[in-house]
């Protein structure tokens, strides 16, 4: 069984996003970039399944400009077997529907039985690509998973999904797409020897033009503005009595 792990390179999640007033885009020039945290969790889960003996190969896929290769190398250094880099040759504004179509092509070509990916990327926060991929392929889908257990015969997987009302447990027939939530596992770090080894692992490059997909944006970003958490004029409180008094005064109690 092959596992495909689509991953994304994003602005480091602990860095504040800033708008470039001229381009009207989020400024990523010289910004610290990292693998999307949810993708790290997806990579870890795929590696655990491979280590349990249930998977034959793990394949990381990323779509973007040349720098995306760095993120794929990180996945290889964590332990993924090989990587597929879809070269967009520029900073195209690709959207989940485009990504879903590209990934569907790759999943079919590789005859992968399982796709493990992040539930969302922390830049655009769409939370869509896994769902779209499942819709395009008509594969079963488990979103927001916090637990994954492959059946002994390898034909299905039991997943726990973190949903608004609690935890839902479902049995997914394979082939399946799962999108991972934060509490699925604790991703490993790449060791120095593995980082060295990753340089010689196979990395295939595919030009985006080789897919027969219309990549014109369906949803265009017109403008962006910063709306970060605004500081408030904090008043210091010393006691419960004072706090309750202030809250009554503000009319919120």
């Amino acid at each position, binding site marked *: 069984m092959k596992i495909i792990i689509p991953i994304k390179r994003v602005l480091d999640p602990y860095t504040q996003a800033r708008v470039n007033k001229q381009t009207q885009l989020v400024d990523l020039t010289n910004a610290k970039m990292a693998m999307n945290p949810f993708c790290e969790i997806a990579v870890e889960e795929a590696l655990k399944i491979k280590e349990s003996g249930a998977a034959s190969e793990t394949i990381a896929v990323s779509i973007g400009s040349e720098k995306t290769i760095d993120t794929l190398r990180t996945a290889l250094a964590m332990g993924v077997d090989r990587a597929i880099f879809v070269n967009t040759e520029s900073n195209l504004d690709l959207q989940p*529907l485009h990504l879903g179509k590209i990934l569907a092509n790759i999943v079919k070509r590789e005859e992968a039985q399982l796709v493990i990916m992040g539930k969302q990327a922390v830049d655009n926060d769409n939370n869509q690509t896994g769902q779209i991929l499942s819709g395009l392929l008509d594969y079963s889908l488990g979103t927001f998973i916090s637990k994954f257990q492959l059946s002994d015969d390898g034909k299905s997987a039991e997943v726990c999904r973190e949903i608004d009302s609690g935890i839902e447990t479902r049995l997914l027939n394979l082939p399946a797409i799962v999108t991972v*939530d934060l509490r699925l596992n604790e991703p490993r770090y790449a060791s120095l020897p593995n980082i060295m080894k990753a340089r010689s692992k196979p990395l295939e490059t595919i030009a985006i033009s080789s897919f027969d997909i219309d990549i014109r944006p369906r949803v265009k970003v017109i403008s*962006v503005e910063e709306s970060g*958490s605004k500081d408030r004029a904090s008043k210091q409180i010393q006691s419960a009595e004072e706090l309750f008094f202030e809250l009554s005064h503000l009319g919120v109690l």
Partner: protein
Amino acid sequence: MSALILIELNGSEVSSNSRAAITAATQLSDAIDALVLTDDSANAASVASLSNINTVKIIADSNLEHISVGVASKLVAEVMAGYKYLISGSSTYSKNILPTVGALLDVQPISDVCEIKSNNTFVRPLYAGNIMATVESSDDTILMTVRATAFEHSGDEGSAAIEELSLPIPEQKSNFISLQESQSERPELTTADRIVSGGRGLGSKENFALIEQLADKLDAAVGASRAAVDAGFISNDYQVGQTGKVVAPKLYLAVGISGAIQHLAGMKDSQVIVVINNDPDAPMARMADLVWETDLFGALQELNEHSL
């Protein structure tokens, strides 16, 4: 330009985020229908009394309560023929189904709309809400989820017609096993006027009970930071933030939460923010209207004992 609202039910009640979706739809269309997938056709009644709905389309089947997203999205896509908009309130329910419908209709959905600028231009958050983007859709059909905190919750002054659809239910590829529901008598997190939220600083599940005690005293919902959920103090559905629930209550009282960007993203629009913490330099404190810099256990004890 007709709109279809995908209604989410909590038991037999219409969820508050579906009510926000109706309000959003009124800004786009004056021909609004509702679609509800349910195991019980009696649930159409609560949907029919919602304001501003012309017709409630109901698909009722005993298998639909925990139906797979694959089946749900196929049914929704079929009903969508002829509609310009499909709108649902942001929740794990709609975030599961809407993008899958997008794949079937070849439409790029728009997540977490906070403002409607025109019939195809919307404002939505990026980067955990630190960036607000104005986006324009060129799709003929528009699929979107809307933030329940950004739109009024539509009321119950309607009397819609009910139309029961009998569509064949396709075979599903994933089967429901169980739902471990959190039971709580407290107000629901996303609609509560007051929230008492606890973080890593509480130290243990036992100590987290102090947060619950204070919430009960203030008739508030309980919230938590990711750290508190990760540490097992409380279950995942109480998490406030970028990947948890987005809230905007009148009062947000944060205890022992330092305030990661991802947490602030989920509560920064609260009307009054109170922080109780022993670290005056924590990002959370800068967001606060009222700060009580103290040992949080002493503070919680005092708050729980002091009469209102």
